[in-house]
């Protein structure tokens, strides 16, 4: 694709455009499965738990983010974003790979990551309870470890 238009065309075009919002569309991975506002808030809630879960599982195994990224075959940056930025929607591929490493059902991990609509009863409540009881500190405490194990149980059942 090559544009061959004179400078005057663009000057006139900028004049026509003026000050305008021009945003359109959504990225391909959002597409028609993008949740509506209320669902997006729910996804935000569970994604906090998703990030905490990834972080605690990693620390419980004595892995740093780079080690987890290498084992899962994803970018270290993506691990860090999952753990620290619930606004950021993880890639489905990365969630599948992490689920495989963690040994938990990928479908439930997808729900937790906000990538599919939740069909698991009480998943959101379990996720919020887990997130609230597992605020990170320097080392994994017994409470955190229990919370992690209980949540793994809730995901696997």
């Amino acid at each position, binding site marked *: 694709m090559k*544009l061959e238009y004179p*400078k005057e065309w663009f000057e006139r075009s900028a004049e026509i455009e003026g000050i305008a919002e021009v945003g*359109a569309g959504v990225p391909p991975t959002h597409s028609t499965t993008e949740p509506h506002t209320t669902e997006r808030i729910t996804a935000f809630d569970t994604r906090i738990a998703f990030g905490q879960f990834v972080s605690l599982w990693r620390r419980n195994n004595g892995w740093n983010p780079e080690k987890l990224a290498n084992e899962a075959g994803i970018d270290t940056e993506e691990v860090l974003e999952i753990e620290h930025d619930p606004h950021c929607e993880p890639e489905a591929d990365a969630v599948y790979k992490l689920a495989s490493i963690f040994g938990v059902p990928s479908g439930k991990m997808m729900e937790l990551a906000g990538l599919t609509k939740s069909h698991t009863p009480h998943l959101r409540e379990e996720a919020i309870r887990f997130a609230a009881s597992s605020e990170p500190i320097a080392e994994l405490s017994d409470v955190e470890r229990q919370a992690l194990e209980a949540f793994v149980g809730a995901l696997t059942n």
Partner: protein
Amino acid sequence: MTESQVYLLNSHTNETVEASLFDEVTDDHLALWDTSWAPLMRAHRTNLPLSDTPEDSHWNWKHKANSWRSLLGYQSFALVCEGELQGLMLTNDITSARLLDQFGKPIVYVQFVATAPWNRPELQDPPKYRGVGRTFILAAIQTSLDIGYKGRLGLHSLPKAEGFYRDKCGFTILGPDSSHQNLTYCEMTETQAENFRRNH
């Protein structure tokens, strides 16, 4: 990858400046996004109420790029001016028209268009550069012409951009689309594309 020389209006200096439109988003463009757009978007996301947060503020273009690069029928575009990334666009050529008089004919569908935060009136007053949006639409029309689709386009407008597509680009508005978050679906016919190219 092809580079086209285009021009934008710098609103701060009121001067027309050269810019480059690339028909492929490269790692260099994504690096520019990472060092300039992303920190500003993060700041807006932190400082603005949820309702005012730009809808794409959480999109990670570096990750998204890996998704679309593997998809056949998709083409990405980057607009660079004065060393900064001014906008990104992704199109596909696997979509059909919905307007009655061109129903079923292939169109170039603009999957998304996004401009840099400093070019958005809701984030910076006045925005730095004018002309980013219409330059991308011109590129989409040219892509449509190049593959024999005669300039036909379709896209889903974000709510605040409907006026731009209707009044400043000449799209026909088909209304909210429940399959796309109720975003407004807009379509451009061959005739409308020709008018756009004539800057009417």
